[in-house]
């Protein structure tokens, strides 16, 4: 781009850069220290055709610049003064030693340019410029590509020295930020074919950063795009509802419940009993227990979900893996704080009222059938009624909901069911279709008829249970568990008395523990493509414990790496 305003090169140009005779400069002012450039400044800082003079490719010898500007022109326009201020600050920056200068982090952040420059320095430390590239041989000889470009440009730009002076200074300041890299910049392929002087620096300035910026922005824009696409999905009301259901402990997909939900909107708040009811029923000390167990609940449901594909669940349930573990209903006519958790027996009764009357005490057998997770310690046998009296006071709230069948057994059963729900976070899940449930129950021969069984409170004993894989097992002998618990009770300073209720809870916890352990161990074994649980699996499991015990103050001396 030839500037028509620019006169031919001024005679003072060689004087400007004495160290580089080949490089021409039109600014004689710089050669003479103390000579102020200011007098002609009013036009000085004018963008426009001179804008190319701001290219960082322009270089002036540093020593000359130091004394160039001492006194700002009093007539200078604010723009000029601002330009001077910028120049001064940059000159101060120049005066600082090269290595101690603060590098601009912007480039490092935005472009991989530094890396490329380093790479170029390593790969081609002394590479010569390709003749066909943007810079002329003369500039290559000068050792500085930018200087060469500058020189060639200035051959065309010879309009006003003062203009150039200002622009050169600011140019120099612009260049200053990049000055560390500029001499090292490998320009083999970057100058886009502008062998002649003028457009060179333009293109150099414009083209060089642009690919980097766009390259840096590509990822960002893609990411932003992806995020902006994803965000609306998250606020999808359908999913939101689903998520709320999930956060409520995967409450129910049951149409029955949904009907209830339509009837009373605030059912969600009813899942957590208000404080008054809580205090009435469970006392203050137990208030925390539902929370703790709801955490376990989420864990269990997660596990159940992961395991759901293995067949045990789906086979017996005859329903999807997302079936609710709760059977929470809000009785019609009650306020929303009243809710009841329907036992499997109740589900069954709702399905078949006639059969329910005859088999109202079937919860035990039914639960045993449905108990793939051995969680229903109560319901496995009549043993559940051991603690019937203990749960009697919990039944007050439930009794309101028990409008269908109010015999004592059912209340006790429901009470214990609710207790176990609170305890475990899930009840033995009833089949949604009660017909298939009863059929499966009959098929497995676990159907029991006697109601009178539930009357007697028998001792806790090792009972047969069925794991989720359909394998029968017996829980640990309660005597052994009791002995163990007594041992620890004594070591912790308490008396060695273990109440039946406590023993029951311990047995329940033991069952859960072994179930969890079995899941984990089988997961490890399967991951190792083994069908046998090995000692290594156990060791892996126990190593996994370490992280939580590391932060346990009681085991604070455990300093194993995670």
């Amino acid at each position, binding site marked *: 781009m030839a500037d028509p305003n620019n006169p031919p090169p001024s005679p003072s140009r060689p004087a400007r850069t004495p160290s580089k005779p080949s490089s021409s400069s039109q600014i004689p002012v710089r050669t003479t220290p103390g000579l102020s450039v200011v007098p002609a400044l009013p036009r000085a800082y004018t963008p426009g055709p001179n804008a190319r003079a701001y290219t960082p490719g322009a270089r002036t010898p540093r020593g000359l610049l130091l004394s160039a500007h001492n006194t700002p022109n009093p007539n200078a326009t604010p723009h000029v003064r601002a330009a001077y201020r910028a120049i001064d600050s940059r000159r101060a920056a120049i005066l600082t030693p090269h290595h101690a200068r603060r590098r601009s982090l912007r480039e490092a952040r935005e472009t991989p340019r530094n890396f490329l420059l380093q790479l170029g320095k390593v790969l081609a430390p002394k590479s010569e410029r390709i003749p066909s590239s943007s810079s002329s041989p003369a500039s290559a000889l000068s050792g500085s590509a930018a200087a060469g470009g500058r020189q060639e440009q200035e051959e065309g730009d010879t309009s006003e020295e003062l203009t150039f002076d200002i622009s050169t200074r600011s140019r120099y300041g612009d260049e200053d930020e990049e000055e560390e890299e500029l001499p090292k910049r490998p320009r083999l392929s970057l100058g886009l074919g502008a062998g002649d002087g003028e457009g060179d620096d333009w293109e150099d300035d414009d083209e060089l950063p642009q690919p980097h910026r766009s390259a840096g922005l590509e990822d960002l824009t893609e990411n932003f795009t992806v995020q902006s696409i994803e965000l609306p999905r998250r606020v999808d009301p359908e999913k939101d509802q689903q998520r709320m259901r999930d956060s409520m402990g995967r409450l129910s997909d049951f149409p029955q419940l949904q009907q209830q939900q339509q009837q009373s909107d605030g059912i969600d708040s009813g899942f957590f009993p208000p404080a008054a009811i809580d205090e009435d029923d469970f006392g203050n*000390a137990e208030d*925390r*227990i539902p929370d*703790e*167990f709801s*955490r*376990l609940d989420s864990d269990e449901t997660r596990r159940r979900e992961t395991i759901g594909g*293995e067949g045990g669940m789906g086979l017996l349930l005859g329903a999807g893996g997302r079936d609710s573990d709760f059977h929470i209903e809000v009785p019609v006519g009650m306020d929303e704080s009243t809710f009841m958790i329907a036992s499997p027996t109740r589900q069954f009764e709702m399905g078949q009222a006639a059969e329910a009357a005859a088999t109202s005490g079937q919860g035990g057998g039914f639960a045993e059938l449905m108990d793939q997770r051995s969680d229903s310690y109560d319901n496995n046998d009549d043993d559940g009624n051991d603690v019937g009296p*203990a749960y009697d006071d919990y039944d007050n709230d439930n009794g309101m909901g028990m409008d269908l069948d109010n015999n004592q057994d059912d209340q006790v059963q429901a009470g214990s069911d609710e207790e176990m729900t609170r*305890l475990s976070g899930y009840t033995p899940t009833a089949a949604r279709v009660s017909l298939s449930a009863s059929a499966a129950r009959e098929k497995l021969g676990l159907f029991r008829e006697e109601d009178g069984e539930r009357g007697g409170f028998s001792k806790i004993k*090792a009972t047969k249970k069925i*794991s*989720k*894989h359909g*394998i*029968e097992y*017996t829980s*640990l*002998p309660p005597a*052994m568990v009791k002995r*163990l*618990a007594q041992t*620890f*009770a004594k070591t*912790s*300073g*308490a008396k060695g008395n*273990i*109440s039946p209720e*406590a023993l029951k*809870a*311990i047995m*329940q*916890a*033991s069952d859960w*523990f*072994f*179930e*969890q*352990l*079995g*899941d*984990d*161990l089988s*997961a490890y*074994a*399967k991951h190792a493509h*083994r*069908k*046998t*649980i*090995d*000692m290594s699996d*156990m060791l*892996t*499991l*126990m190593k*996994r*414990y370490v992280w939580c*015990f590391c932060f346990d103050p009681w085991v604070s001396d455990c300093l194993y790496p995670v």
Partner: protein
Amino acid sequence: MPGQKAYPRATVKKIVKAHANCNVSKNVDVMIYLDYVFLMKEATIEAKQGGERGITGRSVKKVTADTLAKFKG
């Protein structure tokens, strides 16, 4: 008592086998029992830390969730 078994090995093995649906190799049940004892100990410690005195049903229920979560692999 010298003749008393510390724990029913076969039962422990059966329990784990039923839950894991995998065979259990030799001597793993010892480790499992050890783990179980460890769980009991942790639960006791946790209950005591939580201000419970003695082992009651309530205290056991209170610490069950946390302790089980701790022992999750």
